[in-house]
Structure formats: C-alpha cells, structure tokens
C-alpha cells in the first residue's frame, strides 16, 4: 500500500511563560508537546490518534496540516514536505479542528464559495459539490442563514463541509465529534465511514474509544508527546477491549491515573 502520510520524528516544544510556570508549579522554561513521534498512514486507511488531553495529539495534527512548524522532523503528505513545501501540503489535505472557526457574519453558501475559490476549485465543480454536501448534511435550508444564527451542531456540520470543499484525498480531523449531540455525532461518524469507503486516507484524533473502534484500521496511542503504541486495531483489541488496553499502556507509561 502507498504511504500517503508519513510522520517522521516530529518534535515540538513551547516556551512556558512565567505566569504558566506559576500555574503549573514548574520551573521548566520549555514544555515538550511532541517528542520524536513517528507513524505512517497508508492510502485508504483510517488512522486514529488516541490519547488523553494534553498528550500532543492536536499539536501533531497542526504540524501535519502545516499550520505550525515542527522544531525537528518532518511530515510527508503524498510526497510534499510540511517543512519545505507547506502550501503544497495544504492543497492536499482537509483539516478540521474546533480551533478553526467560521466568520459568523457570513452564510454557509457564501463561505463554501469563498473557500472553494481559495482552494482553486473550478466553479462548476464547486457548485455541484456544494449541492451534494449541503443535501447530505441537511444544510440546504440553512444555506442563506448567517453562521452566527445556526445551532452548534449545524455550525460543526458547516465547518466539516467547508474543510473538504476541495475534495482532498487526505483528511485530518481533530476531535470531530467533540461537543456534539448524539444525532450530529452519528452524522459525522457515518460520513467518516463514507469517506473511508471512497478510499480517502483519514487521520483522526480523539479520546473517544467507541469512535476509534468504529472507524479506524490502525491506532497510535500518544502519551506525553510520545507514540506509546502504534498497531492495527485488530492486534490491539485481540485480548482486551481498546479501553482496557489503553489504560494498561497509560499506567505503564505515565505512572497511572492517580499520579496524573
């Protein structure tokens, strides 16, 4: 299988402000968010990054989508390097995270056209794709309603649709069902499965075990910025449930729940 996304020895550190040092009761000036992290996602597979809050999942995804630069290491997205050619990487991926917001003043209709133009999508193709995605997610009747007036679930659906206006082959979703009601979460999960069937390569970060079990082929467990385990879902869950396996690994690597 083709290696469509290759993460190589990524490292990312952040300076800790004096204020943050006080809050975290530490004298460390630097926080290592991601430490020598590597994995590969093959064409057509769904790769899940599983880990607790603050494990470095989001930072990893932000480096993969060329939003922030790694201190060390690289990510090759279909051959394009996030370090050397970030614009090419951004063309190839669709990235969705809760940190990316849409201008509330505009309508879904306007925003879809706007982002299609930024991605250089042909007008006719964009119109057809808009119709198809809007119908699938039930956005059509809200197409001319300002984003600010939409419900949280509808906003998330619009964000998801906007992130894939250019029909990318590689999709990176950070906590795609976080904060959604069960109905919207199901719509998103079903859509991820549909994308998988279409042969898209998907990397999804989450701390929801059921989502991983439902859609992922392979799983990477990230603890304290490091890749603790990276294996197929089948191997990981051969003897124990994913949840049990995770807590075993977590206890071994991070010293257990009580110490966290």
């Amino acid at each position: 299988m083709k290696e469509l996304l290759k993460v190589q020895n990524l490292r990312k550190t952040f300076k800790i402000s004096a204020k943050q040092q006080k809050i975290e009761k530490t004298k460390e000036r630097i926080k290592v968010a991601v430490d020598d992290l590597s994995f590969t996602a093959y064409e057509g597979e769904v790769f899940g990054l599983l880990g607790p809050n603050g494990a470095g999942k989001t930072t990893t995804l932000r480096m993969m989508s060329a939003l922030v630069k790694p201190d060390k290491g690289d990510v090759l997205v279909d051959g394009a390097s996030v370090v050397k050619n970030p614009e090419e990487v951004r063309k190839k991926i669709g990235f969705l995270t809760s940190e990316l917001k849409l201008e509330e003043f505009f309508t879904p209709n306007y925003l879809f056209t706007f982002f299609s133009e930024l991605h250089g999508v042909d007008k006719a193709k964009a119109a057809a794709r808009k119709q198809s995605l809007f119908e699938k997610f039930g956005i059509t009747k809200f197409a001319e309603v300002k984003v600010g007036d939409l419900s949280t679930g509808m906003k998330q659906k619009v964000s998801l649709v906007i992130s894939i206006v250019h029909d990318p082959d590689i999709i990176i979703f950070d906590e795609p069902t976080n904060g959604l009601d069960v109905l919207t979460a199901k719509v998103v999960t079903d859509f991820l499965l549909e994308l998988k069937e279409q042969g898209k390569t998907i990397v999804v970060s989450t701390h929801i075990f059921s989502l991983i079990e439902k859609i992922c082929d392979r799983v990477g467990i990230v603890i304290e910025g490091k890749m603790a385990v990276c294996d197929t879902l089948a191997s990981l869950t051969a003897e124990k449930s994913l949840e049990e396996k995770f807590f075993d690994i977590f206890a071994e690597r991070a010293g257990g729940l009580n110490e966290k």
Partner: protein
Amino acid sequence: MKNSIMTIMKKEFTRFFTDRRMVLTTVLMPGLMIYLLYSFMGSGLASQFETAEDFRAEVCAVNLPESMKEIAKSGAPLEFKEVAENETEQLLEDLETQEAVYDLLAVFPEDFDAQVAAYDVAAAGQAPAVKIYYNSTDTDSQTAYTMMTEALDAYESALANKFDVNPGEEVYDMATEEDMSAQIFSMMVPMLMMVFLFSGCMAVAPESIAGEKERGTIATLLVTPMKRSHLAIGKIVSLSVIAILSGFSSFLGTMLSLPKMMGTNEGVNASVYNMSDYILTLLVVLSTVLVIITLVSIISAFARNVKEATGWVTPVMIISMLLGVTSMVPSLCMTEPVWFLIPLYNSVQSMNGIFSMDADVVNIAVTVAANVCYAGIGVFVLAKMFDNEKVMFSK
C-alpha cells in the same frame, strides 16, 4: 442591594486596575499624549512669537510726516521708506500678490502733522486719516500691520484722538479670497485629514486582523493553500479602499464645512483649488492610507484581540495628530525633499503645500513613492507575521 452594587463595582475595578495595559492606555496615555501635544504646539507657537520680537516692519510711506520718523527713531520696530503717491498702484499690486519686498503701505495725508495739530476734537469735523494697506495672509505683513497700528494708536492716544487709522468702508487688507482660503485650508485640512484617515483605518483594521485572530477565523484561512503574502495584500488593499471611502467622506465634509466653521463663509471656499490640486491630494491621501493601514494591521497582528489592538494603536494615532499640527507651525514646515521621507509627516507637509497653493511636485513625488515603499515593506512584514505561529496563535 448595596452589597451587590459594591460587589459589581469591585469586580469592574479589579478587572480594570489589574490589567496594566488597560490602565496605561486609558488613564496614563491620554494625559501624557495631551501634555506632549500641547507642549509641542505651545513651543511651536512660542517660536513664532520669538521671531516676531526681532522683527522690524518695513513700511513704504506716502507723505511720511516728521512725527512718524520720530516714532521710528524712538525705538518702535518700524523702518520707513518714503515713496511717491504715483507708486501706490504698483505697491498695492505687489502687496496683493505677496511679491512685495516691504510689509506695509502707509498713506498719510499731505501735511499730516499740521492737520493733526490744527484738528479740533470738540468740533467733531473730519479727522486726518492714515491708510494702512497690508495682506493678512502674509505673516510678516500681518505682524507689521499690528506693530504699525499699535504705534499709531499710542501716538493717537497721546494726541487725544486727533486722527483716524483706516477709516470708512475701504478695504485695506489686500489678501485675496484665494489667499485666505489657502491659509485656512492649509492650516486645518492636513491635521483634520490625518485624524479622519487614521479614524477610518482604526475602524476597520483591528477588527479585520486582531478580530479574526480573536474569533479563530484567521486560522481557518491559514490552512488553505493561499500564500501568506496574498492574504496580507488582500487585507491591506481592501481595508485601504474602505478607509479611503471613509477618508473621502470626511474630506468632502471638511472642505464644505470649513468655511462655515471658520465663520468666514464669504470669501473662503474650496473652489479656489483646481483639478490638479485635487489629483495631487488624492495621490497623497491614497499613499497615506496605505501606510496607516499597514501600520495598524501590523500592530493588530501582534495584538491578541481587538481591544488590545485598539489600545496599542491609540498612541500611534496621537503621534499622527501631533505630526498633523506641524502644518500650523511654519517653523516646522520643512521644504527639503529629505524631510518628505518621514512617513506621516511627509503626508501632512505635502497636503500643506497643496492647500497653501505652494505645492512642490518633487516633494509630493517623494512622499508618494516613499509611502508606497513603506506599505510594500509593511506587506512583507505582515506576510511574515501571518506565517509566524507565535504571533498568529498567541493567547
């Protein structure tokens, strides 16, 4: 109820006084800036008066009486040059066109001293009259006029009002409508334009840059394949257009209302300027807006939110107002092209030149070229900032 009021007040005060930036920009900065602004204006005006103290008025006089020669000799800052009556027409023309090498033309009646001595105040007949012609739009002429009338007033008082100065309806101020308009517009418009243009830029740029950061929408743009420089140029050009519309509206309002504001709507109007003056003004305004928008955008990109951006931009706005005041202080109006490389100051002085009908095309060209260069550098800096995660994702 009192407790709730106190609780709310305490919360508001804690919010305000524990935010050092807010205290600085809201409480300390305005006082400091106003102190600097007024001190600056004061020293500028004082320097004008200092020049006036050394000044000696050069007065062409027809039928110069002995009494005036005595006044000049006794220490009055007046230097008389006797001229013939048939020269007055040419002298008045020179005064009107500001080409005169003298400051005033004083016309005394023949045998002024004898007429004054013979004049009986109680008889209430026609008193001997002195006519003093000047040009109020020429600083030296205006100063000389004040000195001359002061000297004559003192002499007249000593003689128990035995003569008149500038009697009747005759026009003695040789300033033309054009001169008066140019003087008023060149003093007021540059400063007002700087305020209006800056206000226009402040209204849009912090919201568009810091606002997008604050709301998280800039990150959504940054994950698209668009070049950072395209984002910077797109923002700056569109914001400039909006700011120019705002500035243009202010400009129109200023030009139309200024004569009324000055209380001289008869004689002062914007029609004294021709199309080339307006085209030059437009060029200066366009390039100025580019500079201001770029500056405000860069500051806004550093800020974490709109409030912080507005706070940081305010001192810069006050500095631009300070520079705007230089059009009112002749000693601060430089004419060498090198001064026109200084951003904002160059815009004020270029507008001052245009509105005083003394525009130097080289200086305006330097201004426009320099401003476009500064805006270009600003776009480059902004593009780099858009690519800098520490700036873009600072919390």
